[in-house]
């Protein structure tokens, strides 16, 4: 299932993008993913995608729109507001997790990613589960 799903990842930090790319290829073993290098013109670029993403993974601290604003943009688009959106955060600040939950994210996964459990988390998210797994 996780190999067939289509993933969108938004991350403005190159190293993190490379890590995710590597994990997708070697751990999740899929090519069905797109990575945006920033959040500018986000919805236009999402709509421009050939395939509607099954999961959108969003970095929180990024520019020009942070994770919360990006979430808001997706949620306000009726065509995309059913897509599970998961925050990827390096922040262990507990209140941050709380804020994510309040904001309406479908889950949060802490960085560094635990490569052992990551595929399992994706699978649970695809099944509609909310996953809170900060490191």
């Amino acid at each position, binding site marked *: 299932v996780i190999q067939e799903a289509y993933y969108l990842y938004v991350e403005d930090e190159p*190293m993190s993008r490379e890590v995710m790319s590597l994990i997708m290829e070697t751990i999740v073993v899929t090519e069905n993913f797109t990575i945006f290098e920033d959040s500018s013109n986000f919805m236009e670029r999402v709509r421009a995608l050939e395939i509607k993403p099954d999961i959108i993974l969003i970095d929180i601290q990024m520019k020009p729109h942070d994770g919360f604003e990006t979430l808001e943009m997706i949620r306000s688009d009726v065509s995309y507001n059913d897509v599970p959106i998961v925050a990827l955060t390096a922040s262990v600040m507990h209140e941050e997790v709380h804020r994510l939950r309040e904001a309406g994210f479908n889950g949060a996964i802490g960085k560094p990613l635990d*490569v052992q459990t990551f595929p399992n988390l994706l699978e649970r998210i695809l099944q509609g589960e909310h996953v809170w797994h900060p490191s």
Partner: protein
Amino acid sequence: MPETRIYIIFVLLQASWTFGYIGELLSPTLTGKIVWDNFQFIGYMFAPVFIFAFVIRFVGAVDRTPPKWWIALLAFPILTMALILTNSSHRLIRESSEIIADSPFHVLQYAFTPYVYLTLLFVYGLSFTGLGFLFRTFMNARYLRRQQIGIIFTGFLISMSSVIPLFIGVKLFGQRDVTPITFGIANIIISWGIFRYGLFDIVPIARDVVIEHAEAGVVVLDLENHVVDINPATRIFNPGMKYSPGKTFAQLFHSWQSYLQEYLDNKQTTFDVTDEVGDNKKYYRLVFSPLFVQRSNHVGTLLTIYNMTWHFETQDIITQHNRNLQLAAEVSRKITTVLDIDELLPQIAQTTAQVFNLYYVAVFLFDEASQKLQIAAGSGDVENIEDAKLDLELSNERLLVSQAGLKREVVQATDTLEHLGYKNSPSLPETRTEIALPMIVGDKLMGVLDLQAVEPHRFQENTVRLLSNLAEQIAIAVNNSQTFQRARQLQAETEILYRIGRELNAASTYADIIGVIVNVLDVNYNIYLNLFDTFDAGTAQSTIDTACWIHQKEFIAVNVKTYPAEFVPDMLAGQVYVVNTLEDLNNDPTLYSLLSQQNMQSALAVALWVKERRLGTLYFLSDQPYAFSSIEKRVLEGLADAVAAAIERIRLFDEQTQTAERLREVDSMKSQFLASMSHELRTPLNAILNFTEIVALEKLGSLTERQKSVLQKSLDSGKHLLDLINDVLDMTKIESGMMELFVEDQIDLYEELCSIIPATEILLKDKPVALIQDIDSNLPTILGDRRRIRQILLNLFSNAVKFTDKGSITLSVKTKSDGSLLFAVIDTGPGIPLDQQSMIFEPFVQTETGIKQNEGTGLGLPISCRLAEAHGGSLWVESEPGDGAAFYLSLPIRTVELEGMLQK
């Protein structure tokens, strides 16, 4: 009874005359006849004098004939007697004598010398004058009196009749003189009258005894109300009255006529009568009584007049005294009931003026500060007086009021026209008497009571005494009232200060302070508040930091920075400084210009001090002069203290707010820094860890064992670094109070333990350590932060694993009866010495063993301990060195505090 005596002497003299005449007739010799003739001269010469005296007395004219008249009248008969006895030597009486023998009785015959004619003139002149008096009285008299006089008149007329033939030259009985005979007849008639009409019994004796010497006036009236008799005392009642018998009562006593008319029923009647002549008041009692002769014969009226003036004057004095006492009582009563001086004093002035019927009454109060007597109340038209600004200098000796105050004694001008240097007040031109009475309580001069009357000599001694008492009572009343007023004022001041203090507590800006002053004092002044940035008490130099001012309750400017210091002069003279008029400021040009620029006339400055520190000055400015002359300095000083305290509080509050603001900023920066550091450190670390792990997992190609081992060490070190970062962040959050629990309900502990125990087993690797579980079979779900509870337990396990090389690690979870869960992680490691057992819960402290292990951050236990406490639980250790250690975690199943933090 002189009349009786006189009449008896008269009768005896007449008898001697008749006796002498008989002797002469019977004497045979010439010599004998001459002796008898000489003897007759005694009666002849003296009888007329006595009959005249009798008549004068009988008609009541005695007091018009002085005694020397009588001496003069007696002188002539005495001289005549002397001449008769010496006739032989000078022949003035008889030149020659012969005996006429024409009858059995021989008469001595001699020619009348001029002297004898002189004696005839004397004797008959006197007799006829008396007869004239009698006749006049007879004509005016009525009834009894007329009858009495009639008898006497008839008697005398008969006596005198004998002289008629003598004068016309007819000799009835030859040369014989009938005069002695006629006198005898007259005596008989009068003597009859004495018995018939009681001549001497009724009127003359009564007159002598009662009437003449009575103090009471006596008036006898006949039935037609003509005055029959009147006594000398009556004149006292009517000094101008002439004794005029026969006049009517109405003529003599015109003003009393009405009383006589009221008496008509002829029963004894008494009237009390007042006669007023100018200031003289006379009181009389008139008693009219009917007069009866022989009990039933009503002949007239007796009016007795008693002078009751003394009696009534006494009564008047008593009445006046009573009235005065009543006034005093009234004043006393008011004094005890009226404590409001503004009400009391006008009442006293009015009442006193009314009761004593005075022109003007004023009460002056003494102001000790100004040494002035200020008018506090006045009777009547006070407005004029007040216009005159009647503040009298105590030292002004020309004024009675000031004199009384200065000397502390009663000062009186009994007649202002005669009083040296007295000048009438223009408002009181009619004053003729002024009396000023000092009002004193103890040694204290309270004021002066001033009374003025239009009549001179108005106040008698006893009135003055009473007024002095009155003044004393007023003084006591004023003193009481002032004491009461002071107490009330003090209370009001205290209330105002209390209100100011309370409302100032709520003031948070300087403008608020001024607002409070305006509201509470309810003043309409311009108010300035100058706050000093710096102030040098030595040079009185200040720099104004803030100036607020309010104009007519409306803020015009607030916080005028860089106000030039010299513009508002400092007042170091005292706490309170008052400028009554601009003239006061002639030698203070700075303040003068400040006030005049704003059209202000008077000012008040209050220094604001906190302890020894001068904060600034509070100014009140008014466009009226003397606006602050009577303001209570005590209130202002209290106000100044409260304002200074409020300013200080606001300053401290501002400082605190600023400090708190800075702290918040610092804190925010710190949090920002922590969040940022977390992110910045972890991002590269994430890459390192993820890349290393992917390589180590041989996802990018197979590795040699040695490569895998090196990569694993790299991975471990990276994870340790990540733990360190996480722990430091956690600890920092705990230390700064920013640790928040993410509380969830119904945490299934079995589930948590199921994920923790495998992790522990992984940690143990191939150590010969048994993991023993002693977990209650039906643990409750609990309330708490799932992630943090797991963090504590993992920390305890990782410590146990770290320090235990062999033996066992036991996990025990029990439900306690007090509603808590007790977790225990018990190892068989080296144990912890007692002196280090408390240190291990302190951050950045590791035991020697821990340091040797070269693992961990040293923050695990402190963080776990704080997290347990944040859950309302606790974490502690029990250990014997060499005998392992037991770490206990006690957690409440649920608490109210945690429920409060429960996430939706």
